[in-house]
């Protein structure tokens, strides 16, 4: 059920998109109204979530230190995994955000007879997660040609690079294939590894299916159904210039399914675990400097009324014992 329900949900979205594309006025709704709405919800929701996080203070300085700290001058510090400066934290965050540094550490533990534990290297999750995210990024950037006129140089360069194998017409993009492969890996991993299957929720499968649906409809549109690019471009340019118009009947329904799924993803995004995209920047165990003994960190809700059991109270209780034991006291 955890897998089937989200799968059905995505199929239902596809069906809605397909039907809506063919009812009168549906194309305008799906091609113009919905994209604006979805984009607004995405931006608004995203900002709202980040502001909600930011509203809560970080009361304590709690970096997870993953290397030698700044200590005596002759002890070599690990300046990135245990940063004592802002620069170190920036380097740590860059490695985390762009190269998934922590995931790269992944190991796999196996229990053998004995009992004996063995830890093997396990980089596949890191590799496919990296491929998935970078392909997604490249694909989104490639789509900018539909929204920006003239097409920015880096988008053209990206397209050229992505299609450098020069297979087929229109030219086949490697990222499309790698993207599908990476999604398939992430899905199969969830299904086949028993502990990952056990922890997975519908909220883990749904975005996978949804993104897979977006990728497949996109690929079908480009290579199989050959949707009318000129008409599509007219529409997308219209969206970015706030003068949207749809050439009636020229655009294939597959396009509207694609757009509908993308809109669903945009709307779903701020309310879901996909917000890890923003959260990774704000995680206190990663983005804080390990300098808590050097610089006092302030907790805005620190309660000054919590005081230790006083020495005076302690001495009052134990004074006679202390005197007998030759321990100095304040009051004789």
């Amino acid at each position, binding site marked *: 059920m955890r897998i089937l329900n989200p799968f059905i949900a995505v199929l239902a979205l596809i069906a809605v998109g397909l039907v809506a594309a063919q009812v009168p006025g549906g194309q305008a709704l799906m091609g113009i109204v919905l994209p604006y709405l979805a984009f607004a919800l995405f931006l608004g929701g995203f900002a709202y979530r980040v502001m*909600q*996080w930011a509203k*809560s203070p970080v*009361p*304590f*300085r*709690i970096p*997870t*230190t993953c290397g*030698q*700290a700044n*200590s*005596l001058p*002759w*002890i*070599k510090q690990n300046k990135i995994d245990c940063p004592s400066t802002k620069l170190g934290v920036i380097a740590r965050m860059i490695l985390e955000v762009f190269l*998934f540094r*922590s*995931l790269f550490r992944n190991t*796999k*533990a196996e*229990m053998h*007879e*004995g009992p004996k534990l063995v*830890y093997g290297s396990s980089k596949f*999750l890191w590799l496919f997660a990296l491929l998935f995210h970078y392909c997604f990024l490249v694909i989104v950037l490639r789509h900018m040609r539909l929204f920006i006129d003239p097409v920015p140089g880096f988008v053209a360069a990206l397209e050229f690079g992505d299609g450098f194998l020069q297979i087929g017409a229109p030219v086949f993009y490697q990222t499309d294939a790698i993207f599908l492969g990476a999604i398939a890996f992430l899905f199969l991993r969830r299904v086949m590894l*028993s*502990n990952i299957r*056990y*922890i997975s*929720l*519908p909220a*883990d499968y749904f975005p996978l299916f949804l993104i897979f649906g977006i990728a497949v409809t996109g690929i079908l549109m480009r290579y199989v159904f050959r949707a009318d690019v000129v008409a599509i471009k007219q529409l997308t340019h219209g969206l970015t210039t706030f003068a949207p118009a749809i050439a009636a009947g020229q655009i294939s329904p597959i396009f509207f399914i694609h757009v509908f799924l993308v809109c669903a993803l945009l709307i779903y995004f701020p*309310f879901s*675990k996909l917000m890890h995209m923003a*959260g*990774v920047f704000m*995680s*206190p*165990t990663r983005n804080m400097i390990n300098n808590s*003994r*050097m*610089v*006092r*960190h302030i*907790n805005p*809700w*620190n309660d000054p009324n*919590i*005081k*230790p*059991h006083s*020495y005076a109270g*302690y*001495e009052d209780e134990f004074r006679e*014992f*202390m005197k007998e*034991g030759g*321990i*100095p006291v304040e009051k004789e």
Partner: protein
Amino acid sequence: MAIIKADKLGVSVAKGPSLMTGAVPKNDWWDVPATFKPGNYAYPAKKEIIEYHTQKTFPSHPGLFGQPRDWDPESDDWNLPEGWEKIILNGLKERLDKFRSLKIFMDCCVRCGACADKCHFFLGTGDPKNMPVLRAELLRSVYRNDFTLGGKILGKMAGGRPMTFGVLKEWFMYYYQCTECRRCSVFCPYGIDTAEITMLGRELLHLVGVNINWIMEPAANSNRTGNHMGLQPHTFKDNIVYLCDDIEEITGIRVEPTFNRKGAEVLFITPSADVFAEPGIYTAMGYLLLFHHIGLDYTWSTYASEGGNFGLFTNNEMMKKLNGKMYAEAKRLGVKWILGGECGHMWRVLHQYMDTMNGPADFLQVPTSPITGTRFDNAASTKMVHISEFTADLIKHGKLKLDPKRNDHRIATYHDSCNPARAMGLLEEPRYVLKNVCNNFHEMPENTIRESTFCCGSGTGLNTDEIMELRMRAGLPRANAVKYVREKHEVNMLSCVCAIDRATLTSLNNYWNPDVEVCGVSELVGNALVMEGEKERETGLRFEPLAGMEG
């Protein structure tokens, strides 16, 4: 609690049906109830202990520990207060507003599972809810249900669960099967730290009076007597004097420590277990010898006689309250700075919390070693230095006369304690000290040391006897790494810089690796120190014959 023999438990761990051995539970995790039976839970706090905390420790904060009462985890009625669900949800709301970490960690997990096999509790028990991701889901499901739009609308479909007695039971079970070691947070792509989840989970449990005695009683002792053992001032002093007697017998040197002395340059604070229980007392003898060797102007305190902080295992209020004694005493005695002994979670509190909670320590000076002149700028604000930092600096400057041959009967390895490793970054200092005081040192495998170190399995107040099997399971990854170096390098001494470790690793090794002993790094320093005017040493600090001196 009687426990089955190690070989039997070994078979059970490796072959018994568990998620670690490939057996997948038939039911979804939210349909598997937590069932308490003797041996799988630590005893609840005694009623009078909670009465003490509500009346004496926190009269200012009614409700912080619920209502004092007797209750039995095995019963279906925990005598919870009226409307306890509301108390929990309000408590959760308050903490979401106070801790950004909690909000982010509730929202960002993608359940990638990278943390799953990083937890020593999961590796040793194979219980799915000991995967850090599920431990967090126990709380996250309630959070989703009541604090997120998706959960409010879709409920169970969005992975939400209402707060029920069944959920509370799970929290009590699994937030006391986590030692806040932070190993999972090293591997998490978003740095989600289960220690944070467990700490806040325990805070919430306290609000409805769900707690364990092994934490609450030491916390009460710490508050009243200054140390978790409940040693009164004269007893505390007497214990150290006994250690001085032993030192005299072994070395011929009489060391004369002082107590509560005003005007000393340095206040020394270490976990009270070091002055009371084996093998910590040998570590304390190491400190005493070291300070005598260099002529340090220092004092012990009977009022601030506990380095450890059971508040860290309770809630942030208790942590602050117990920690407050250190600065209060440093101020009263007029010392210049504070030196801290070997302890794991103590150093998490000192490094990451103390200055924030109880600072600024503007009445102290930036710690400067009176022997070497080194200024410890890394402690410029908190003004507290770790004994390994202090000792490493002394050795580097050639201020210690050492004879490492006196540790030739030891083949040592080093266990990085969780908190100094992952909440401080203290990795090289103790190793530098070790390599200078003993000739035989071998590292355990790299996946089990430094930032990847495995917990002893009994931290955060879980080293109580009634859950011995759980502890031996949770400690298995550490014990296994020790076994590896024992077989490969004939290691016979597991050194560490943590008082809880010294107690718990001793039980762990007795169980899994009976011929490996446990010591503090400072014990080996004490063995190696050549004291001025000493007699020829025939034994180490535990009266064990030195190499070449046997029989």
